């Protein structure tokens, strides 16, 4: 279990200084789902390092007000300094509860804006590394056809997929992207089948927004890009790189703010972007089958640098990608 720190330890929320803050996370989905998994991992690391106490509850779902109930119970019984989680699909209730507990910092993954006094929002803004992945993919493809399998076309998925396509087309205008959605966060068999259909339609490079796609690439001996976490371990011969979301900058910032007593509601978007280290591209795996030419690596590096330095801004496009995208 994820039980760390002292069980019933509750921390005085108003206190500042260097003492250990308590964080409770409430995830609508399961921590096996990579989006929530990233947050969980960051908090777990901090807890393991003794910097926070951390409890979580996941798989709360969206039905019958379960999320609101859970938030209230956390606020009433655990009385943590910070409640983190994802309020997608539970937006109304999360905000309502936050209003009732102004002493607690509510830091929620959300598609909406922050709300005074204590409701901050964050999201995975990894469209920038996705764009760079696209640059790599666009340079590496021989058929000029890329295959992308997504879960559910929500904005955070769409902008990553669209950025990947845009990156590829920026180096290779002939790129044609084939996009399938499986309409589920988990169904690796369906995702793999979708990827295989793209391969048969000519795709020679895949983007694994969801689990199951890397497996398809490995089976067919094709290069593939991972998402959310560094997924090289699943298939070291074929995973070129991954668009990595890192929650540590967000969490660190919040911890500092709360400790300093200066926490306010805000949009934490920037902390999940490249500039602040919240989004990165995993180290490019030049050891993949067929290798990655040095000039391609350099090109990608250059794009990454210009993003980091703010010279280049990746467009955010949250529209649902069509099944077949050409420039």
């Amino acid at each position, binding site marked *: 279990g994820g039980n760390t720190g002292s069980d019933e330890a509750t921390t005085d929320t108003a206190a500042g200084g260097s003492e250990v803050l308590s964080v409770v996370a409430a995830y609508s989905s399961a921590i096996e789902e990579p989006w929530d998994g990233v947050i969980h991992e960051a908090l777990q690391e901090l807890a393991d390092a003794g910097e926070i106490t951390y409890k979580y509850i996941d798989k709360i779902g969206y039905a019958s007000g379960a999320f609101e109930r859970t938030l209230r119970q956390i606020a009433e019984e655990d009385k943590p300094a910070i409640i983190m989680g994802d309020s997608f699909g539970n937006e109304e209730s999360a905000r309502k509860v936050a209003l009732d507990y102004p002493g607690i910092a509510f830091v929620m993954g959300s598609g909406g804006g922050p709300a005074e006094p204590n409701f901050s929002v964050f999201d995975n803004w990894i469209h920038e590394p996705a764009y760079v992945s696209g640059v790599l993919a666009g340079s590496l493809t021989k058929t000029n056809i890329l295959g992308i399998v997504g879960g559910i076309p929500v904005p955070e998925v769409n902008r990553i997929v669209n950025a990947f396509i845009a990156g590829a087309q920026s180096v290779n205008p002939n790129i044609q992207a084939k996009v399938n959605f499986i*309409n*589920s966060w*988990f169904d690796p068999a369906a995702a793999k089948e979708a990827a295989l259909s793209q391969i048969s*339609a000519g795709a020679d490079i895949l983007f694994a927004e969801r*689990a199951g796609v890397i497996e398809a690439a490995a089976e067919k001996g094709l290069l593939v890009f991972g998402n959310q976490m560094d997924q090289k371990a699943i298939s070291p011969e074929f995973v070129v790189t991954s668009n990595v979301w890192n929650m540590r900058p967000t969490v660190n910032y919040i911890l500092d703010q709360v400790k300093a007593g200066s926490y306010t509601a805000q949009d934490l978007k920037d902390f999940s972007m490249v500039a602040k280290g919240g989004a990165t591209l995993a180290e490019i795996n030049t050891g993949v089958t067929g290798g990655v030419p040095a000039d391609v690596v350099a090109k990608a590096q250059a794009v990454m640098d210009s993003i980091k330095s703010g010279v280049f801004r990746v467009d955010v496009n949250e529209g649902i990608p069509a099944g*077949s995208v050409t420039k």
Partner: protein
Amino acid sequence: MIEVTQEIIGASLRIATPLALAALGELVTEKSGVLNLGVEGIMYGSAFVGIATAAQTGSLTTGLIAALVTGAAAGLIFAFLTVTLGVNQHVAGLGLTLFMISFSNSANRIMFTADGGQVSVDPWRPFNFGGPIFSQYWITYATFLIIVPLTWWLMRRSGLGLKIRAVGENPEAADVAGINVTKTRYTAILIGSLYMAAGGAFITLAFVGSFTINIINGRGWVALALVIFGRWKIGRLLAGAALFSLVNAGQLQLRLLPSFSDVPFEILLALPYLAVIVGLAVSGRNVPYPGAYLKPYKRH
């Protein structure tokens, strides 16, 4: 065009494999007069235990055996409840599904994912006998070349099959004829559960090589529908599985065509289900349920 067709056929054989296995298992079970709504759960639990064992032991075969043992154990629990005790089959089946899924998810969390991991193995690879149609996993070959004819033989040509059909139609008559109704139903449920387990194991040990929650994602319910679609006939059942899988494989390709690329993907995803309903509406009426369907048997 020919290539796409071949791809679609190849893909539908893959998609159909777990469906056909589970549906055949359900068919054998239902022929004995017992409805096993645990099919989704048995697939799920076997998929998990199979890969967990394979990952721990490093042997896919051991994993498959563990999956089958899991299926058998689940089948035994189910048989005890429904045959020996005569518990309502809807409740027992749905309860078993809930049991297997929640157990697997809990175990998966405790064993593998609590700190960000995931259980995965190097799965069985497809053989390539040339062309997409013949590039299939051994389980797929085994399913369609061995299990299907074997099941047909079992149900139509073996003594056991005759007994299974008899206890499913009229357990009293079977009893009077000296057949052990309880034993026969246990056997049918066990055989069925083994098939379902194999279907679940196919997904983790062959097709995907890893386990995530929701791995079965309703395939068990589809299998259940296919049995009724097939009116408890193996040929028709396979036709249903083929219809579902072909439409499924076809819709994946369809979305990639530029002319279809703006059709909401939900419509395409709904097609396989619609196809089965329409197929049923066109071809099947007055479903010949086994005579003793859902009825426990007890002597006085």
